[in-house]
């Protein structure tokens, strides 16, 4: 028991272990300080940013810079920077809440996010003492703004294929950087860039490059579909002399930095999506109540209610999954000694443990937001297509989330890949589990879970983990090392894992709340969980079926499909009725409620 419980809080361990409600962090666990930090962020965004949103959309970047400095004065840039270097060194939940609340600022949230996240974190985690002392205090206050330069015109997903070069000069004092970095957020006004280049065209490395260095310039502002108010330019490096003290980490180890930063970047992106989706749902609910057609508010139409019900349910699942991951970071970091916590590399490693969860969060939350934004536009009808309405911007701004920080396809591919690696390294007893599964399934009789709250959901969750083992195990056995070429299959496995993580996060959050407040007070959470589980299990069944049909045939296939049916068999619930009830609550409060 202890073993499986421990397993449950390891990276990807939820697939093989049992996780208990008191092991997960949920939004109901926010402390008073968390709430106050969230409130300050919200008040700042509403009071200072929202009134000038249009100016920001028109690229008046002096306003963005001024706002970033103001945010810095309030401490909104220093959450992830240790106190020793002028920051606040807050927990990851605090910094997550700041990110979530910044979503309301639209494109400006990108300027904030790129600065505090991918811009500053490489130095926080991988800078040496001198670099941290030199750069972090100014970054924490907003005196200097940071940017992150990884992508190039010919290397996007294949980040390590960068063409930018770094060559040590004859004196051995400076690296000479040449190349072109593309789509660099904050590039119009950033003072400090973390730039990736290959030393001698070979060793992928990270450098801290200041705008002031000779040979650094930026191209014109890109014209984009969304997030128009963020600055996006090419960064041009023309014989830039970078002091060798500015190598971040070690030469040839740039990928370690890049991948670690991507982990946390993906998580933060997911949190931002949760924030944006809450806003979209709020707007949709308000509008549905206000807009009358056929003499009644459109909120009274069940077609609209169904949309609202689905939007809120998806949001609940992702919010639960995201903050659960944030809690895992915290938990893992709290195991570090005080000395280790000072060591950014150790902190990054504590986060990297949850690389799978970060990828899941990234693609699931960004797709949830795309769905919610799309339906919000639909509820607005023709007005949603008009630029005066905020949902139009949310819809356009949403789209990039499925592309940057690793496309959703890359993130999906990473999920089974990383899980398999963990299994081969002996970190996850996946192979043992998969082997015993076959026998277990042959013997299995479908059970009838009782009707206590969450009982059926938990039963199904348990079975879905077996479905995962069946599909992934069959794939690994059949294709062995050629599995990585079976990309469709890998994407499907990632979808199954994602739904499992989301179902489990929703169940555990609801259970934790019920343990505290009783079922009566948490009726809405139960509804969310029931609807999400029902729909996710149906998705998993379909995905697993397609996968098995691709992999097996004849009697083996028939046997497997019958096992799949056993695993997914359950008393279906009436999601239509539940969504009506959910919508009623959301429409009454005119916002996302739990």
């Amino acid at each position, binding site marked *: 028991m202890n073993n499986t419980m421990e397993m449950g809080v390891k990276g990807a361990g939820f697939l093989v272990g049992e996780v208990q409600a008191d092991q997960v962090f949920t939004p109901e666990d926010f402390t*008073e*300080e968390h*709430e*106050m*930090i969230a*409130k*300050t962020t919200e*008040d*700042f965004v509403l*009071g200072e940013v929202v009134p000038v949103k249009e100016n920001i959309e028109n690229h008046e970047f002096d306003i963005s810079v001024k706002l970033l400095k103001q945010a810095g*004065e*309030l*401490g*909104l840039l*220093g*959450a992830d920077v240790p106190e020793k270097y002028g920051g*606040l060194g*807050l927990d990851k939940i*605090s910094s997550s809440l700041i990110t979530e609340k910044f979503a309301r600022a639209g494109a400006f949230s990108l300027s904030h996010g790129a600065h505090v996240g991918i811009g500053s974190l490489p130095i926080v985690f991988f800078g040496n003492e001198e670099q941290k002392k030199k750069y972090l205090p100014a970054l924490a206050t907003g005196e200097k703004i940071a940017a992150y330069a990884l992508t190039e015109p010919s290397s996007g997903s294949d980040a390590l294929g960068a063409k930018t070069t770094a060559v040590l000069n004859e004196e051995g004092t400076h690296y000479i950087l040449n190349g072109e970095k593309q789509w660099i957020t904050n590039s119009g006004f950033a003072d400090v860039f973390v730039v990736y280049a290959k030393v001698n065209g070979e060793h992928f490395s990270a450098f801290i490059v200041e705008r002031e260095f000779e040979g650094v310039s930026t191209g014109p502002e890109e014209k984009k579909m969304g997030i128009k108010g963020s600055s996006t330019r090419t960064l041009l490096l023309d014989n830039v002399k970078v002091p060798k003290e500015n190598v971040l980490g070690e030469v040839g180890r740039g990928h370690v930095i890049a991948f670690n930063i991507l982990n946390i970047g993906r998580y933060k992106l997911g949190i931002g999506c949760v924030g944006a989706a809450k806003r979209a749902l709020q707007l949709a609910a308000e509008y549905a109540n206000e807009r009358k057609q056929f003499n009644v508010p459109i909120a009274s139409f069940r077609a609209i209610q169904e949309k609202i019900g689905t939007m809120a349910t998806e949001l609940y699942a992702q919010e639960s999954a995201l903050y659960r991951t944030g809690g895992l970071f915290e938990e893992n970091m709290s195991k570090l000694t005080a000395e280790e916590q000072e060591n950014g590399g150790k902190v990054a490693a504590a986060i990297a443990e949850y690389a799978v969860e970060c990828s899941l969060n990234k693609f699931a939350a960004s797709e949830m937001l795309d769905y919610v934004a799309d339906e919000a536009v639909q509820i607005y009808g023709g007005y949603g297509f008009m630029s005066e309405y905020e949902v139009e911007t949310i819809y356009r701004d949403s789209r990039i989330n499925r592309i940057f920080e690793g496309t959703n396809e890359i993130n999906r591919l990473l999920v089974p890949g990383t899980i398999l690696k963990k299994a081969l390294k002996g970190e996850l007893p996946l192979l043992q589990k998969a082997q015993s599964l076959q026998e277990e399934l042959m013997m299995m009789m479908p059970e009838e879970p009782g009707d206590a709250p969450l009982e059926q959901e938990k039963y199904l969750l348990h079975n879905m983990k077996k479905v995962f083992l069946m599909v992934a195990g069959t794939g690994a056995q059949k294709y062995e090392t050629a599995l990585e070429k079976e990309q469709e299959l890998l994407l499907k496995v990632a979808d199954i894992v994602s739904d499992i993580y989301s179902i489990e996060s929703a169940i555990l959050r609801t259970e934790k709340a019920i343990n505290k407040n009783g079922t009566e007070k948490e009726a809405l959470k139960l509804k969310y969980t029931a609807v999400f589980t029902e729909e996710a299990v149906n998705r998993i069944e379909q995905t697993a079926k397609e996968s098995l049909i691709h992999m097996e045939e004849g009697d083996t296939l028939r046997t497997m499909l019958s096992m799949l049916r056993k695993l997914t068999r359950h008393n279906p619930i009436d999601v239509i009725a539940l969504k009506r009830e959910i919508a009623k609550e959301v429409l009454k*409060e*005119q916002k996302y409620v739990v």
Partner: protein
Amino acid sequence: MNIFVLMKRTFDTEEKIVINDGVVDEEGAEFIINPYDEYAIEEAIVLRDEHGGEVTVVTVGDEEAEKELRTALAMGADKAVLIDMEDFDEEIDHFTVAEALTAYLKEQDYDIILGGNVAVDDGAGQVAPRVAEGLGINQVTTITGIQVDGEKVEIERDVEGDVEKIETSLPLLVTCQQGLNEPRYPSLPGIMKAKKKPLDTLDIDDLDLDEEEIAAKTKTLDKYLPPEKGAGKVLEGEIDEQVNELVSLLKNEAKVI
């Protein structure tokens, strides 16, 4: 300078309010620091930063108000005091609250006391003036500017949109009007420091008060929401007809002329 701020926790009147049986439903309501009291807190911090001393924020309420007190501490106040009425069995009105505050302040060494002009929930504007009377000190209401120079205080106050300039002296109680300042956001360092600042809880026994003597002097008979705004009416026809129609509507339907 010893500065005290009288603060009230109120529900946010800009959020949806539900009234059940003449009582505001607190379940769904959002709670905030009374916005006028925020001006008082901000001004208190400014005065302290200029003249030195300490800012103590006092509220009368229950445990729930600790959250708003913490917010005031996060903005920069030094101490907070909750006069807890949880166990108070009698009815509470503005008189009760003022008596509790007066009793507390009588024991304190104060130079200036700041409060909001009114609370946005019931808009009575009684408590602060009652406290000034109880303490027997100078009071100026609805101030929009204040300069303290030694014992001398120069004040600008809002008189129905006009400005009145007043000179008075410490000790003094003022109530703050919109326009006095822009309250700051509690900064993150402020929030982190707030949890280490003292927040004391007193009850009326600590203040040597007798429940019956300070029980409410008024009784609220009912509370209800304003009628929902109906649809507008567009008058049609010739201009003369429209004017006649309008006059008749104002006379007979709206009964305002």
